[in-house]
């Protein structure tokens, strides 16, 4: 199949929650290297609270994103509240009227999230933030839409792009956020936000693939 049903999307959110929970310590340690060490903890707190509050019931992909985004924004704060809050709410709003979601739809949904983020942060690709994950991921999706690539294949390529994007932060010097004050000392270490963003996007891709496979 080349579309998935929005209302089946809970599994995607569950995968996102799980990957954050499993990587809580890793993300915190990464943040400790050039930041303040709270990234894993905060992400875990937000995503776990989402799980606790919403995952007893079923929900669609976009409703899940909306609730997760609102929760991060309104209850978690930090940098991740507004950042992932904006991304997820932007994605949710772009897709909430869709019953089925195609590769093109998904690409547009992610683009909406990305555009929302661009309104609130100054960081751009190359600044050693999660933008370095988000931007190439979106680019990969958009290219594959144009090329008419199969959804599952596009999702695998998207994962690879996200991973590569995240890894590209290693050689960068931070220009925004807490580690930006380090200058050259920030080089050589992955940006923790780019890693959590990769994990989330990979979980999203895997979740969608699972729904696509079911059919």
């Amino acid at each position: 199949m080349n579309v998935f049903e929005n209302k089946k999307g809970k599994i995607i959110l569950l995968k996102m929650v799980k990957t954050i929970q499993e990587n809580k310590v890793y993300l915190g340690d990464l943040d400790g290297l050039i930041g303040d060490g709270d990234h894993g903890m905060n992400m875990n707190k937000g995503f776990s609270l989402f799980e606790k509050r919403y995952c007893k019931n079923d929900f669609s992909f976009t409703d899940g994103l909306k609730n997760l985004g609102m929760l991060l924004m309104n209850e978690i704060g930090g940098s991740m509240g507004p950042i992932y809050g904006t991304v997820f709410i932007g994605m949710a709003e772009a897709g909430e009227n869709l019953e089925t979601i195609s590769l093109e739809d998904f690409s547009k949904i992610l683009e909406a999230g990305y555009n929302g983020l661009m309104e609130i942060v100054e960081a751009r690709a190359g600044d050693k933030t999660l933008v370095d994950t988000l931007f190439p991921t979106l680019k990969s999706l958009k290219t594959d839409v144009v090329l008419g690539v199969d959804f599952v294949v596009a999702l695998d390529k998207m994962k690879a792009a996200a991973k590569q994007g995240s890894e590209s932060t290693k050689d960068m010097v931070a220009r925004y956020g807490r580690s930006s004050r380090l200058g050259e000392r920030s080089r050589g270490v992955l940006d923790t936000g780019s890693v959590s963003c990769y994990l989330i996007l990979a979980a999203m891709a895997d979740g969608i693939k699972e729904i696509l496979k079911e059919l």
Partner: protein
Amino acid sequence: MVQRILNDPDNIVDEMISGFLKTHKDIVEATENNRVIKAKNIPKDKVGIITGGGSGHKPAFIGYVGKNMCDAVAVGEVFSSPTAMAFLDAAKAVDQKKGVACLYGNYSGDNMNVKMAIKMAIKQGITIKSVIANDDVASAPKNQREKRRGVAGEILMWKIGGAKAAQGGNLDEVIAAAQKAIDSTRSVGIGLSPCTLPAAGHPNFEIKPGMMEMGIGHHGEPGMEICSLKTAKEIAEKMINIVIPDYPFKEQDEVVVLVSGLGATPVMELYVLYNEIEKLIKTKNIIIYKAYVGNYFTSLEMKGATLTIMKLDQELKKLIDMPAYTMGLKQK
């Protein structure tokens, strides 16, 4: 295993707030948002002063709520910005249609959340203006002052802004005074041992025995230089040499000096450090008008200290001298 007194690290902030409210009933009270604390008996018809920030910096931030300082504070997780909603609710809790001054520190989370709160406030007919503290010299070169972190200088900004509001200043006057305060203020921090986030099981970073970190941030953000541990005199010199030329503070300037511990440095050592700082400042013919020494802005149980210097003019002098009555700063 971290040597801590706590129940569930995920609840530490809420439990801390609960204990704080019970202890300081005469100064603060709860609001509908459990992450917003406000002052008791806020005088009528004044500009509201709010701030907010991550937890783990006690007395900051809630310790500066009270008479002639902050009227309400938004409380975040340990080392994490409060939510936009909390900033908004803090503003709502103290808005008296005279406007609200949000005086906070330059961290990307706080910046984003305050910006969002301001947007939401506008929709609700509340005017919030903000001043962003950026006193930490070590965190960016002078030509990128807008990137510098806010550290203990925030306390002086709250003192000045709060006093101006108490005097009946309007929103623009309060904002101008707070902005002047922070523009006249420079800080630097040194770290001697790391801190451990309650939810993490191990220190956030490492400072090797016998070493110290110059220019460390008060979340343990790495500094400008790691060097061998110096004597109090040498540390004072290093700190002074970073702070004084940056502003620059000059002969005959009258200044406030604030030396804060980062949590686990015995207060005794802070006085030893201040003793050296005072001597050096005197040598430069700079006049210390007032000094604060103590654990004013901490970083959990980090060992280390920050030095903050603020240049005074006639207005700032009057404002710094106004009484204050908060958990963290009481002054006749």
